[in-house]
């Protein structure tokens, strides 16, 4: 496994060097289509519906980016990537942007030569346990058997957490999330641990979700975000500020319902005007037209709307905003000013 990773890293590094400097924006425009890498399927984040149309939280970002650059949110071709293939696909230019619930880490940013353009979901590793176990906190899990996906950062986080709290556990190695759900339900382990968003999605699929409780401890930082290749800063800027535009739109109260009205004429909030292109020349600085952010927001709504539609409390996944609320509401979402 380690070898594979090293080899992959080498490959990726070499590729990144080769592909650097290519003007991705021109390529995308010439192609008339954005190539976006997504996961092969993660509940709420990316999955094809019955009509072969991709839906989800990560997918919505790609659609916004396509709308900003090409004017059409549907002009995206999605490439399914696995944990192993995602970085090579991006480095080799097979995809223009990777939005695949990828954790922003030092080595991925620096060593693998990618550029994370921001964070679209602040995740962290949590635990789920049956209510009948009677545990209220992860610190009470001394001696528990834990289902865990092998070869992931969650495995390492788990070991760290239990060592730091000086309690013991017995790992039950599992290959995939699907397998883990079945094992957990069959009682092969007392608790199951993975990213909190995944736990919520998993619990939603149980026949009796109320019998299971997600423990309050979050034991790791998993900032998930879209990323692009090193070396094409213009494209990185577009990707970054498209994400920021979605976040800022929520902060300023620009929604898909009122955006038409707000962008028809300059409002008395200059920040909104600059965002929507009714004032200033921010679009031209990016190499796009003035309405780029307008189209990005219209594609699926602002950040809050995308969140609520795909993974929010009204959906079966039922995630609360938590860390992903705006900074004004106690969350971590904070877009730099549009100026």
């Amino acid at each position, binding site marked *: 496994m380690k070898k*594979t990773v090293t*080899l*992959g890293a080498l*490959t990726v590094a*070499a*590729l990144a060097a*080769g*592909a650097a400097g*290519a003007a991705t924006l021109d390529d995308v425009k010439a192609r008339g289509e954005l190539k976006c890498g997504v*996961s*092969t*399927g*993660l*509940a*709420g*984040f*990316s*999955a*094809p*519906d*019955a*009509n*072969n149309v991709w*839906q989800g939280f990560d997918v919505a970002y790609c659609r916004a980016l396509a709308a900003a650059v090409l004017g059409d949110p549907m002009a995206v*071709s*999605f*490439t*399914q*990537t*696995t944990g*192993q*293939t995602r970085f*090579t*696909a991006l*480095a*080799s*230019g*097979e995809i223009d942007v990777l939005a695949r619930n990828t954790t922003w880490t030092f080595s991925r940013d620096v060593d693998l030569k990618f550029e994370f353009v921001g964070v679209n979901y602040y995740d962290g590793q949590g635990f789920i346990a049956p209510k009948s176990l009677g545990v209220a906190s992860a610190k009470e899990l001394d001696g528990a058997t834990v289902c865990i996906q092998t070869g992931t950062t969650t495995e390492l986080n788990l070991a760290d957490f239990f060592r730091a709290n000086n309690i013991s556990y017995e790992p039950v190695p599992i290959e*995939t999330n*699907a397998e883990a*759900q*079945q094992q957990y339900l069959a009682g092969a382990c007392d608790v199951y641990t993975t990213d909190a968003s995944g736990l919520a*999605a*998993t619990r*939603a*699929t*149980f*026949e009796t979700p109320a019998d299971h409780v997600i423990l309050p401890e979050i034991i790791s930082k998993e900032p998930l975000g879209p990323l692009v290749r090193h070396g094409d800063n213009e494209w990185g800027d577009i990707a970054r500020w498209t994400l920021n535009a979605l976040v800022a739109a929520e902060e300023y109260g620009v929604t898909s319902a009122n955006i038409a009205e707000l962008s028809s004429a300059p409002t008395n909030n200059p920040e909104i005007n600059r965002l929507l292109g009714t004032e200033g020349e921010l679009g031209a600085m990016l190499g796009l037209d003035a309405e780029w952010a307008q189209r990005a927001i219209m594609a699926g709504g602002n950040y809050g709307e995308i969140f609520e539609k795909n993974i929010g409390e009204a*959906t*079966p*996944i039922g995630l609360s905003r938590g860390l992903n609320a705006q900074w004004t509401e106690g969350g971590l979402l904070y877009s730099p000013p549009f100026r």
Partner: protein
Amino acid sequence: MSDTHAQTVAYVRDTMLDQQDPPLNQTGALKWIRENLFSGWLNIMLTLLSLWVIYAALSHLLPWALRGIWDASNLSQCREIIAERYGAGTPAACWAVLAERWPQLIFGFFPKELYWRPILAFLIFLAAVAPVLFSSVPRKMLWVSALAPFVLFWLIWGGSLWGPVAAILGFVIAWAIMAFAAPKIGTLLSVILAIVVPVIYWLTLCGPLAGALASVVPLALEQVPTQNMGGFMLATIIGVSGIVLSLPLGILLALGRQSDMFIINKCSVAFIEIIRGVPLIVWLFTASLLLNYFLPPGTNFDLMLRVIIMVTLFSAAYIAEVVRGGLAALPKGQYEAADALGLDYWKSMRLIILPQALKISIPGIVNTFIGLFKDTTLVVFIGLLDPIGLSNSIRATTDWNGVYWELFVFIGLCFFIFCFSMGRYSLFLEKKLRREHR
């Protein structure tokens, strides 16, 4: 017989007894059951035990399958219907996921309005393999087989018709060289020419020619990119291409391994051992990850093509060993007889050795093919959506998150149909070709 006792017989019956039915327990089903199932206390125990196991399995499986819900739009709705109809907690299948998603499992993300193309392609494929598989089909149908690869490619991927037509022309050139030039310039030279000239043609003239033809008579189908293909369509394309391409390659490798020529022999051995000695999944990762590294950046070398090449090479190495087994099983006299008839190497192989060797190897070859077909599910690890990958994608939608067995049962059933028919065909062929015991 002596006549010593001729007078001692007091009574001789002069009519035949009527034929009686055998006793009830000596005939028909009862006898069979007695002899095969209840012939001794141990067998009685084993029979009862087996019956109990079968019952236990079916009594869980059948109600679950038969109670299945076919019309629901998501899993929770399905569970509600089950609870309402049979009471909460009753095991019942949610076949509704198949009712809604079966096109995806079969065709992947192929555009819905173009489903006729893969279906037509499949029918043409059946028509094309029929004359190859069954000798009772008219031989003229072989023309369909020869043209089928190009037509199938065009139907599935779309694009201009003239691409495949221009490609066929390369083969026509090769054939023309073999047919007309061979008598004049000798076999070896014409074989080399028949390989080199078409390759030069494909690399240089083929593309522009297709373009020119397309601009004169635009005849094109809508193009469908590879990444939209998935499900059983993907498995079948990879599996069938692998099977069709690996058989000739495998035979050549087997002959190469038997050859006396040093370089050919050692190359074949090295190829076979290296390919066979490494797991298929490693080759697939090589295809998807490392090739990107070797190719210049920006090269768009279709992932499915890369996978087909890797799968073909992999199974060719296995086929080579199976065929080598068949070659080794032939008595030396057969080789000598071929030599004695004055046949050259290729003729002796074609007319005497290979027909016998291949017949011996049929079970092994088909076994390898079945393995290859099932191994196509491994492409899920490099991000291609084979049926298993699609089942993950379907589960990733909030509607169907949590559905497992229904999808796996369906996928398993489809694979079983493919593999079972391959196995049956192999049996049929073995019976037909049996020469020894009649």
